[in-house]
């Protein structure tokens, strides 16, 4: 707001002068055949309108440098949560090293009380091209660049669900690499952590679907903890049903969308790297039932 106040004031002052000039010094019929006084310049005026902007710049730069330092060099308090974010074309991988959790696309972080701050410190990496993590209501954006580790922290002061998306063009489906962050109350967060820590639910009624999963190429890309599937190329599906959306926010997490996604990903996210699995109808139905069992 401070910056806006300064730039806004500058605009009003200069624009007013401009409008005044245009009105006061317009050519009139009375002066038609004369030329105005031919003034070449004025050193004093030039000095004035050099020095004043220079002073404004000094003020702005001092303020800016302070904020840059405060944000970028903020120390990590002991209670901070650490999350590793790995950007992929076109989904987000989240690892919580201290909590032993791996998930994808929907981030859960605890709310941070002023009395006992618990900010989240993210380490940002990329598995392929450049991406950028941006939740406007929680923090500025920072890029995920391959072969480089960047840091970003968020200190949310109220719970809720916040949206964002990848902000650095990363390929065909950059537009649908959506972000969804759930800032949870401490109890809710702990409950979520506990649930995520478990291995995959074993639902016998979905056994044939699980067989389809394990015998087609799914396990090459996806991990379902507690089973043979430990692929790293695609999102971790262990607790797929704990997420509100699939395909990194491209569609709601319903049976219908799941089916469509597996059958023909291009219908939801054309150009994504999920291949169409070419399964028969019955295999597809079984597989969807298995997916829905992964709570």
């Amino acid at each position, binding site marked *: 707001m401070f*910056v806006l106040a300064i*730039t806004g004031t500058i*605009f009003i002052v*200069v624009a007013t002068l*401009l409008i005044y*000039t245009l009105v006061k*010094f*317009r*050519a*009139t019929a009375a002066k038609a055949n*004369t*030329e*105005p*006084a*031919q*003034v*070449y*310049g*004025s050193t004093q005026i*030039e000095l004035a*309108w*050099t020095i004043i*902007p*220079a002073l404004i*710049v000094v003020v*702005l*730069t001092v*303020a*800016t*440098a302070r*904020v*840059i330092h405060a*944000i970028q*060099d903020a120390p990590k308090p002991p209670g901070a949560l650490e999350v590793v974010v790995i950007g992929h074309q076109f989904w987000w991988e989240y690892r919580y090293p201290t909590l032993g959790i791996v998930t994808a696309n929907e981030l859960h972080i605890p709310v941070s009380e002023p009395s006992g701050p618990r900010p989240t410190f993210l380490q*940002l990496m990329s598995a*392929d091209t*450049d991406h*950028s993590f*941006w939740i*406007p209501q929680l923090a*500025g954006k*920072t*890029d995920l*660049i*391959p*072969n*480089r580790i*960047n840091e970003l922290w968020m200190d949310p002061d109220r719970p809720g669900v916040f*949206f*964002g998306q990848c*902000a*650095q*063009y990363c390929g*065909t489906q*950059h*537009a*649908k690499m*959506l972000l969804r962050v759930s800032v949870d109350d401490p109890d809710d967060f702990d409950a979520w952590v506990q649930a995520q820590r478990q291995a995959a639910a074993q639902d016998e009624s979905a056994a044939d679907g699980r067989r389809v999963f394990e015998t087609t190429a799914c396990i090459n890309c996806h991990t379902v903890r507690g089973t043979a599937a430990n692929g790293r190329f695609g999102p971790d599906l262990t607790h797929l049903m704990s997420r509100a959306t699939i395909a990194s926010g491209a569609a709601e997490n319903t049976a219908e969308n799941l089916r469509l996604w597996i059958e023909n990903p291009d219908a939801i996210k*054309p*150009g994504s790297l999920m291949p169409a699995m070419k399964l028969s109808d019955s295999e597809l139905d079984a597989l969807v039932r298995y997916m829905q069992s992964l709570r």
Partner: protein
Amino acid sequence: MSTEVMAISSAQQAERTWREALHEWVTTVDHKRIGLLYIGFALVFLVIGGIEAVIIRIQLMAPHSDVVSPQVFNRMFTMHGTTMIFFAAMPILFGFGNYLVPLMIGARDMAFPRLNAFSFWLNAFGGLLLYFSFLGGSGLYGAGSAPDVGWWAYAPLTARAFSPGSSSDYWTIAVLVSGFGSIGTAINLIATILCMRCPGMSLGRMPLFAWLYLTMSGMALLALTPLSAAQLMLLVDRYLGGHFFDTQAGGSATLWMHFFWIFGHPEVYILIIPAFAFMSEIIPVFSRKPIFGYPVMVAATVCIAFVSMSVWAHHMFTIGLSSYANSFFAITTMVVGIPTGIKIFNWLGTMWGGQIQFKTPMLFCIAFLFQFLIAGLTGIMMAAAPFDWQLSLSYFVVAHFHYVIVGGILFALFGAFYYWYPKVTGRLMSERLGKLHFWLFVLGFHLTFDVMHIPGLLGMPRRIYTYEPGRGWDSLNLIVSIGAFVQVISIAVFVANLLISYRKGAKAGNDPWDAWTLEWSISSPPPAYNFASIPVVESRRPLWDLKHPEDPDSRYE
């Protein structure tokens, strides 16, 4: 004697067949013809780039739109940016420079006429090569068409692994080749200005237009070449297995970013400085006063040139540079606003105390002043890196730079068209159509680009082919798109004016605006040799001295 010469050449002109005329134009080394070739070529690409923008806006009118596929959309924004910067803006500005600089300094041609022609044809070839990618971009892998990596072509998206096919190569080579053409023209302009001024025209007496083009050309030498170097490196990566930007082999994606923006930031100053040149010639004439503070204007321009080479990483505030680096670039970015602001004040000072005539060229310049002021201020806002961490890569930044390029450069260009068209063709453009063009364009421009700041503030990133409803962006994007359509109509009026005035415009004579620089001392259009005898000047406004012998500039400056 000169009437005989002119009578002979007009008789010859009547005898030419269209084949001979075409041959003349293709083989010309005359700076005026080459200037017009540049301008014509650039106008075509301006329209093509505009069509790409319209496609983008149609797609973004509503959320979840499927007018075009994501692949096509990504090609559209890549081609729009690449076309507008390299094949519309650069050539048109070089075209004006080519035509006008020799005339303004009393010379008969540029320093190297054949290099001049060669540079143009390199540029033209680059443009055609880029668009050939729509046909030929598939390469061996059947993937790819026109490039779709964004006009910055960030690594490693351009690596073979992520850009199979040849589409990225078309981007690289087309821009590389046209870059060499631009460097050739820059060399030509510098040599012309330094070595071919007429007697009496010391550097302190040449029109600001010449100073600004001299500065711009100097910057071009230092700024275009880093991009060429980076593109050569990219070709080494893609064709020879090199690892300059290969992150899998320890290469650095940020190295490309540094190299690109070391080019990219000075590039936008290279584009705006000729616009400043137009402003500095047109505003004095229509205020009926000399430019206020000529030496300060020169100093400010040179200052801008130097400082602007040190600000590049303000395009990289989000990539995780250290707080010291970010602070440095924030500071330099704000500092470069000082000489830029000084220029605005000097134009204001020129108008102050004058007798302002609101003819079409001046209308465009006045709009430039307001719009460039706003654009500069949003730039200062984003120079504050923490602010930029929100605004970067969003539609706020897209709005900002279109404000500079369309609201600044394009408006100044329109002013330049209306101002110098009579000199080039011998006829004035229609004031009525001009004013219609102006007001329509102001309406369309502000509808689009004022409103566009808001989705950016609301979190809408750039380069997305669609967006989710319910983020608050829907109606804003609709208004932005409507503004684009209004601009299209305005451009149609402008093109109509260009064409109709060629036949039906009022005869202009040598000096329709009662101006003061040397190009207005010769006929409209100028003869092939420009000046029958090389002029000798004694002040910055030789024609003012001639018209006002009782009060010449040479007495004061």
